[in-house]
């Protein structure tokens, strides 16, 4: 008789890192369907290139760093999807490859792989691409029927300004319903509030995320909109706020674990986004706010440590 001896507990919850990542992938699917309807086949090609590049770079970093190959945790696919969702469908095919290299090698691989990265790989890669290839990264295209009024028909897919740009230029913005359904120009994954909320609801029901970060983040932007005289509903639906609040700011690795910490993190993201959107010259509120708060997350964690039941009895030195 060969008895296995191991440390308690001898039973484990069925939740695994892989199943969590799979849930995130499932939650991202509604937005992919909207992307296909809005931006056509090209959006799917960009998503495929990004995801495959992420997988390849993850594999290569594991080989070079002599780490066990960690593709099984599916985190590379999640990063790939999120990065692709942050790109316009019109970017040249080589650009997602560079983005994937930044995300998987610079941000994730060099800091020790899954769990080691100090910032969200997809957000950081998007910022790098934006700063390096500003023109391509802001050339938003969409099916002609969803383009901004006044756009001239050149093709089925045309360039069109995003609602945020229209607002900045004091032009007519799409209706709330159109914005909610995603019938406007934007990056691949950000356009439809409906699809993102559906995914978010799935994540909450499955216990993958809780509501603290998304609600405090979106709520802060809305309140700041009210205070500064900007339309709060428009700003919640416009740009990458919902994509960022539901899928990027809630990234476990780069956000605090305690409820108090999550609230501070969410409010911080909201304030920075609002500052950039309402007072800045750039439209990159969501990306920069999440990056900044990612960097602050370890400090927030220290400020918001849980209090041990019964208090602490320190050693006398």
């Amino acid at each position, binding site marked *: 008789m060969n008895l296995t001896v191991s440390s308690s507990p001898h*039973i484990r919850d069925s939740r695994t890192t892989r199943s969590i990542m799979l849930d995130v992938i499932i939650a991202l699917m509604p937005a992919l369907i909207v992307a296909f309807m809005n931006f056509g086949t090209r959006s799917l090609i960009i998503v495929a290139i990004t995801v495959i590049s992420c997988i390849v770079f993850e594999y290569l970093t594991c080989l070079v760093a002599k780490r066990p190959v960690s593709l099984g945790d599916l985190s590379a696919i999640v990063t790939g999807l999120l990065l692709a969702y942050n790109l316009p469908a019109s970017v040249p095919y080589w650009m997602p490859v560079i983005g994937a290299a930044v995300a998987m090698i610079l941000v994730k691989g060099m800091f020790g792989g899954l769990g080691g990265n100090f910032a969200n790989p997809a957000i950081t890669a998007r910022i790098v691409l934006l700063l390096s290839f500003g023109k391509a990264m802001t050339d938003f295209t969409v099916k002609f029927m969803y383009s901004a009024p006044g756009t001239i028909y050149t093709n089925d897919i045309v360039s069109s300004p995003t609602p945020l740009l229209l607002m900045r230029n004091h032009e007519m913005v799409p209706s709330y319903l159109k914005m909610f359904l995603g019938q406007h120009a934007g990056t691949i994954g950000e356009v439809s509030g409906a699809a993102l909320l559906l995914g978010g609801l799935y994540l909450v029901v499955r216990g993958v995320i809780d509501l603290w970060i998304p609600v405090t983040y979106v709520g802060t932007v809305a309140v700041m909109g009210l205070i500064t005289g900007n339309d709060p509903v428009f700003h919640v639906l416009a740009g990458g706020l919902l994509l960022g609040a539901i899928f990027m700011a809630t990234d*476990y690795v780069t956000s605090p674990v305690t409820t108090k910490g999550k609230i501070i993190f969410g409010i911080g993201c909201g304030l920075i986004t609002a500052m950039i959107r309402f007072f800045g010259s750039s439209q990159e509120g969501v990306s920069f706010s999440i990056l900044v708060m990612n960097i602050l997350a370890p400090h927030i964690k220290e400020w918001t440590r849980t209090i041990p039941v019964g208090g602490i009895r320190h050693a006398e030195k």
Partner: protein
Amino acid sequence: MFEKHAFKGGVHPQENKLTSKEAIKDLVGFASVRIPMNMHVGAPCKPLVKAGEMVKIGQRIGEPSGIAVPVHATVSGKVKSVKKELMPSGDMVDIVEIINDLSDTWDENLKAPEITDKESFIKAVLDSGMIGLGGAGFPTHVKMRPPKDKYPNLVIVNGMECEPYITSDERQMLEMPNELVEGLTMVLKYMEIGKAIIGIEANKPEAAKAVSEAIAASSIKDYVEVKVMPVRYPQGAEKTFIQAVTGRVIPAGGLPHDVNVMVLNVGTVINLNNYFKNGKPLTHKVITLSGDAVKNPGNYRVPVGASIEEIVEKSGGLKGEARKALMGGPMMGVALPSLNTPLLKNNNAILIFDKLAKPTEELPCINCGRCVRACPMGLMPTDLDNASRKNDFDRMDSYAIMNCVECGSCTYVCPSKRQLVQNIRLGKAEYRQGLEAIKRAKEAKEAKN
């Protein structure tokens, strides 16, 4: 109907109480027993018998000194040997082996103790050989002698049984509610305490009903409350149990008497009553034998010191292959290297599994926070795990490593399957050594001055 969740965190593993309908059966005719001389927390007993001597059931064979309780023979027959053996706990312990003569002769000198006051009551508790039967094995009489400045004003009786699979307390409450009430009456009377709460988890409605009815029909009905609590692990762990039923929080490093409560397990009270009434010390134990490799899972009364192998055999044997054997529940139980291990006073379950999740590979921590939410002590297990792996004394100290009750909830929920509680346990050992080193350094400094 339910009390509000009074402790934070916790988990809810599959309950798997397969044996809750199985009445307690006596297993008899064991060929031999091997009785360890320290089954309690504290100093080991001195063996009173030598090889070749004849003993009877209930006869004292281990004499306590210091914080300890006596050990009694659990079968009648001839002492085969008295020798040291390695226990699963890792300690070398004196073990008295008795060959059963199968005559089942009880020691004729056993008689109900004369209890007249608090002192004689506590002495009776000591003589009964009673220890905390919930699992910790702390001598019961010691709890009844708190420091001079502590005045327990509440007895809480632990019938939570929050570990999956285990049903021995449930069956004892259901089958012996009057013994529980009688024992509790004695405790309240002689400990001069005016209030008791019996805490039972909601997955044992019949046991709760039986106990409530027995209380209602007794003389102590105005002093005792039965609280049915929602099912949540580790509600039966002492600190969380106290918090759940009373809202009182034991300060770090403290004991129940620091919040004026005395905690007793239902099995402890029932067995105490047996001694008060019949003079029979703790020689037999009701355990749950379960797991997918056991042919007849059930609740069995067996002599302390019987080998697990023989208990399994007497119950009807195994089906499938035994790949993992646990003493205790799946959350906190100890995995046994061999079935040839004696049953201890404080064991309440033996679980034998064919299929049980193998220890899986550890993946990196993804900072998901599930362990933090699961920790009933409000700790941050990943940080303790990290500090423990690095043997970082200062961080173990500031993160309150000693508050950890090792319930395993963090490891249970971890999606990366990290061995959190295992490392924290090692960390605690390192931390204790660190404390010792500080103490020695201090003493050396003082000696120098």
